[in-house]
């Protein structure tokens, strides 16, 4: 369901910890302006129907409808200078700009 490197997993956990949030994020669709929705992460807790992935203490959630739409999602941190920004790429692209822009974890 999710591809995430151990380093990037640690980064996500650290960001959540800095904000005093539980170690749990949801993959969701965001519409961030004219035309192109994208995938992003929000700090959230699990719902009954969610698909759940656990990695080194981090819980990653995705709704089944979304999973059916986009497939497996890869998450990577942009780089050290933008450690709080992530690029999410899905097996079935949401749109042509997939992989271009980064987003932050919404709390």
């Amino acid at each position, binding site marked *: 369901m999710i591809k995430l490197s151990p380093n990037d997993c640690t980064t996500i956990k650290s960001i959540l910890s800095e904000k005093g949030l539980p170690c749990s994020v949801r993959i969701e669709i965001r519409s961030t*302006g*004219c035309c192109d929705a994208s995938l992003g992460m929000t700090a959230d807790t699990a719902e009954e129907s969610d698909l759940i992935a656990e990695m080194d203490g981090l819980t990653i959630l995705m709704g089944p*409808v979304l999973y059916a739409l986009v497939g497996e999602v890869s998450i990577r941190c942009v780089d050290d200078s933008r450690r709080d920004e992530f690029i999410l790429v899905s097996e079935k692209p949401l*749109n*042509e700009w997939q992989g271009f822009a*980064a987003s932050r974890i919404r709390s």
Partner: protein
Amino acid sequence: MDHYKLFIDGKFVDAKDGKTFTTYDPGNDQPIATVAQAGIADAEAAIMAARRSFDSGVWSRLTPAARAQKMYDFADQINTQTLRLAVTESMDAGQTINFSKVTPLGFGANMFKDLSNYASFKFPWEEEIKAQGNPFDYGRDYIRREPIGVCVGIIPWNFPMVMAFWKIGQALIMGNSVVIKPASVTPLSALIIAECAKTVGIPDGVVNVIPGPGGELGKILCTHKEVDKISFTGSTEVGREIMQMASGTVKRVTLELGGKSANIVLDDADMDHAIACSAFGTYFHAGQVCESGTRILVQKKIYNEFVDRFKKHAEAIRIGYQLLPTTHMGPLVSHQQVATVDGYVQLGKKEGAELITGGKPVQVEGIEGGCYYAPTVFAGVKNSMRIAQEEIFGPVVAIMPFGSDEEAVAIANDSIFGLGGGVLSCNTARAERIARQVRTGTMWINNYHYFGSFCPFGGYKQSGVGRELSNTGLEEYTQVKRIHIASFADASSNYTMTATMSDNKSLKKYIINLPTKINAGHGSLASVAKEVVDLGGSRVLLMTDGGIVKAGVAKLVQDCLSDFCVGVFDNIPQDTELETVDAATEMARKLNVDCIVSCGGGSVIDTAKAVCTTLKNGGCCNDNISWGRLTEPSVPHIVIPTTAGTGSEVTWAAVIKNKVAGRKSYIIESRLTPNVAILDPRMTMTLPPKLTAGTAMDAMTHAVEALTTITTNPISDGQALHAIRLIKENLPIAVKDGKNETARLNLAAASTMAGQAFTISFVALAHAMAHTVGMLHGVPHGFACGLMLPKVMRYNVDHATDKLALIALQMGVNTFGMDKREAALAAADEIEKLMKEVGHPLQLREFGVPEDGLEACSMHAMQDPVSLYNPRPVAGPAEILELFRQVY
């Protein structure tokens, strides 16, 4: 099935790697066409084609008029393709045919013609800068607006044809070359427009269209060194990334991003109209419009009725296949978009908003497949909810109540976006008051989605940067270059060069601009009425002071003016102030005055000058404190001096006290110089001996300083020297016998000549010090000048030795046997001797200046701009303090 190719360098070509993709009709999921898919190599080819075409000048160096002719052809060609464009757009992007059929004409051809015509006839490609705002050096300055270069236009899928028109049209009209990347789900209309460009002979490389995945092409388009500007319409997230990438090579970026616009329905709105208009604002093109009114704020008084009626209206919207003319609302662009919209609807329910209607995908009868979604209404929404803050980009609206107009504005502004918005009301003034307070790029009152070629469009806050359309949008496609041509191509005539990088501070250049007509002699006062007529005036404000009125002199002038005089302003203090000018200006405006006659000393004349410029240029006096800004003549001004004097009757300066700033402000404008000066000796005969001495020393200081500043020259030297002689010879006579008309006239002439001299050569440190004690301690200007003059002359002795020695000769000093320095010092001694002879005060303390105030005076004097013209550069306030102490 049709196959569309890339358009690069004037040719339709397949992608270098042969890749293609298929585009689908979102109304029925059927494939429409295959399209070549551009890769990085194709992007490189397109950018370089644009670069070559731009640099060659084949388009960029045509005149705007020549480009306009080609753009008119382009527009006409678009018109011939109207039907094809409309149907293709509907099938590709899901737009209803009722809209897409008007797009090629309304938003394409018409826009091309409108903006091309504007660029040809009205756009300010070159503009003279009449007032440069640099008072130190002279020259001609003008600006040129030039094309930017290679522009990349990245187009979204909601209005691909309109966006292609905007980005191609504006770039080309302004002489640029363009590379367009249409959205991959809607590439066709841009390629048809490219066909039109080729048909009409737009030169190869000027227009290039490369559909391909943004994720792959985005980086090269935004970072390529040959790209000069990026115009992007799309998501905020992608826009942010583009801005970051473009910053690496500092490209110009225009972004048109998302919105969450508020449509405000006031309690006095026409309800039928409010329902229909706000539904249009939300559901037009299935809500896939960046500036859609997706938050409807309804005043509490009408909220329940509005929600109820809006629900019925939304449910009556006919969803159907987009090519049917009976369809109100077509499909969303893709199934992914349906999923996104539906995700937000589920979120809205989860957040506790009340789903009033809709909220689900729809199957259209008779159509298999398709991306349809029901018009959806949420009520009971809080503005903090995600469905109220995030752009859904579908047919979903959040309706919220509000109490006061102020609350509506606060809710509207509580968004990271600021793209559009509306107000619905029967009270236009009320609607405009609200519209002005909403921080957004466009506000529609009793309308929505209304655009025009000359109406700028763009966003505040995270809705974007820059504007499209109108002259504002066109300017975004140009660069500004300023060209300066020095009036004096000589380093030794350049103030800044000599002041900063030369040991010799003298300026070689001089400019003689003495436009004042002078009527001088006994009885010349009678000429005033004729001068009013010659200046085109008929309603004169006579400006004077209480002393002149009391002495009966003002009455003489009024009688000469006869019916021309419509008012008298006589409340002018010894040192005029901003407030005095404003009061006089107000009187002049009320009386509809077209000419000013001033009768008095320097303060009266300076007040009148300031009134002339304020009357002409508007505002208050403080708006018109300027140096070299005026480009047109002021209100006509005739001066009748009653002192001899400030020389203000022929100078282009006015000195006005600014109490708030605690210093004197200067208006220094060549167009401030009075038109006529009337030197009638009878006007100065009532001046008491002490004032005669004080005002004459003002004139003496003008003459001496004009002779010794860094801008001294042969013409002003002659006037200054003769003025010095006239004062020396006639002041003692006039002090002893005030009724001696010859002496009075000679002193008046000396004052005028000294005034002309310093208009050319300026004044210096003695005046800086005099201004200061006048401002801070009320020392009358003439006396202040006289007190400082000999001390400053001695201070300058080694930097103006020759001229000071000449002054000694003019003062009648026998310099035989003296070296020049001795003669220069003798000049200062002779000035002091004259002052004693005529009873001029010799110490600053006589005017009540406190000794502990001298330090502050020296700081202020240092900052007076005239000190810059002193022949000896002033090293610091300590030197000035020493001079103040000498005269104390």
